[in-house]
């Protein structure tokens, strides 16, 4: 089982690493880069929301903090925003500690609402602290590197790191404790699990990698403002939909979800304009109804349906 996983992962790495040799068009590379970035956010969210069961509606806070840390590098200190790739995740992680300690007192929907409010608080703060953040005018940077291939590999490295760390956490004592907390917090307490501490152990890496994706966004897109990077519907809620589509509490679910989200968005943007998100929304509804564990989570079911069809076909012949 384990060697099988390693082989699949190796194949995935080789294919994704070789892709830029075949795909040269900047547009296609751009889409793949966005897929990687969303896969990182999704995987990070999944650790807290999927495995530990603490559904956060405020991950835009960490994304925005990472993005703005990178932006501040050039805006305030005049140094390369690439330093933000190092500092952004650290800032997001540090700020997640008090957030966690406050919000983890709440359970279920109350936790989700508290996180939602926090995300919005950060957005409003960054709009109104004009002297520090440049307000709604945002921060524009002049990227030193414009080669899409470079960003592709940075994105890929980020994704592999995120998936690896998440995998290691989930397949350890911490992972068992997180799932126990998700399944029943009282039972978890009765087994001697300090629930707040372990929820925090899920939140820290989750905030870290979301902040990393945010810092990457600043460097790649070269423009940020609070409405973009602290956006409730386009980031906080979207990441939940992406993970639900791909598969909650699965290793590769968020990546699959990100792939579908980005490509579907591109296909329908040309024909439906801004209504393209509607198609994605309908798809998520269908997935929740028919494949409640997402695409990766229901692979067995999908396989079974496919093979059953084949069997009945051959039986008919």
């Amino acid at each position, binding site marked *: 089982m384990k060697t099988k996983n390693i082989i699949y992962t190796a194949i995935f790495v080789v294919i994704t690493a070789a892709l830029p040799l075949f795909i040269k068009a900047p547009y296609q590379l751009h889409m793949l880069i966005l897929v990687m970035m969303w896969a990182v956010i999704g995987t990070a969210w999944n650790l807290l929301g999927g495995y530990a069961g603490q559904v956060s509606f405020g991950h835009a806070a960490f994304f925005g903090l990472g993005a703005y840390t990178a932006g501040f590098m050039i805006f305030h200190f005049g140094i390369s925003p690439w330093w933000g790739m190092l500092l952004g995740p650290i800032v997001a992680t540090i700020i997640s500690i008090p957030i966690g300690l406050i919000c983890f007192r709440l359970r279920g929907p109350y936790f989700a609402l508290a996180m939602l409010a926090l995300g919005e608080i950060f957005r409003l703060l960054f709009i109104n602290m004009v002297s520090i953040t440049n307000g709604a005018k945002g921060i524009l940077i002049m990227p030193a590197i414009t080669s899409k291939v470079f960003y592709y590999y940075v994105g890929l490295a980020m994704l592999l790191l995120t998936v690896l760390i998440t995998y290691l956490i989930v397949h350890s004592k911490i992972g068992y404790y997180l*799932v126990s907390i998700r399944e*029943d917090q*009282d039972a*978890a307490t*009765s*087994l001697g699990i300090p629930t707040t501490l372990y929820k925090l152990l899920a939140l820290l890496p989750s905030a870290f990698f979301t902040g990393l994706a945010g810092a990457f966004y600043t460097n790649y897109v070269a423009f940020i403002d609070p409405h973009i990077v602290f956006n409730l519907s386009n980031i906080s809620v979207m990441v939940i939909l992406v993970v639900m589509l791909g598969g909650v509490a699965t290793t590769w679910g968020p990546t699959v979800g990100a792939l579908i989200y980005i490509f579907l968005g591109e296909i329908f943007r040309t024909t439906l304009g801004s209504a393209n998100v509607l198609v994605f929304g309908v798809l998520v509804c269908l997935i929740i109804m028919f494949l409640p564990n997402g695409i990766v989570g229901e692979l067995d079911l999908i396989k079974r349906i496919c093979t059953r069809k084949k069997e009945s076909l051959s039986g008919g012949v």
Partner: protein
Amino acid sequence: MIFFEVKNITKKFGGLAAVSNLSFKVEEGEIFGIIGPNGSGKTTVFNLISRFFPLTSGEIYFKGKRIDTVPAHKICEMGIGRTFQVVKPLRRMSVIENVMAGAFLRTSSMGKARHKAEEIIEFCGLERYTHREAKGLPIPLRKRLEIARALATEPALLMLDETCAGLNPKESEQAIDLIRRIRDRGITIIIVEHIMKVMMGISDRILAINFGSEIATGKPEEIANHPEVIKAYLGDAYA
């Protein structure tokens, strides 16, 4: 040193005293039963000991240490395990994963936790269901799983809440056998149960409570003939 002692505990929910001024002692190695009519406060006592509710007043000691001031998750670490009357299986985890979640309290190694879990699962007679998901198990097995998970945390004192409720006579017998074997492992047991036959059969001593206060303590046969106990269960006419 007294193994386990509850001293004058009181729990008030608003104006209602669910447990009032209750005291009892448990000796190492015995099976101590708590009985009482519905709503007499049995489960509340468990919830107070395991720190799910804070005490209104009183003290609880375990192996000479005061435990009513430590956080809830520390109770288990100190060696007091519990099961729930309304079973709380970790639903989307397999039986072995449930038990491993308990075993991780004493080790961080996956291998050791798995090994321990396998041993406990066999002890509880669940080996046929090792890789079944907990949510698909019938009630008797869920109750067993609940015990297995608590055992994996290596408790010195185990509190069993209505382990035989909802079981048919044969299943109850198996549960009683399991409880005896747990005691033979050297684990002290406090048990709450409705079925008198079960309680009379396995308890070394019984505490009878009503309206959150003690009405009698003693050997099973003393309790069965105690006028206050009969009154609490059957009414004045039979006392």
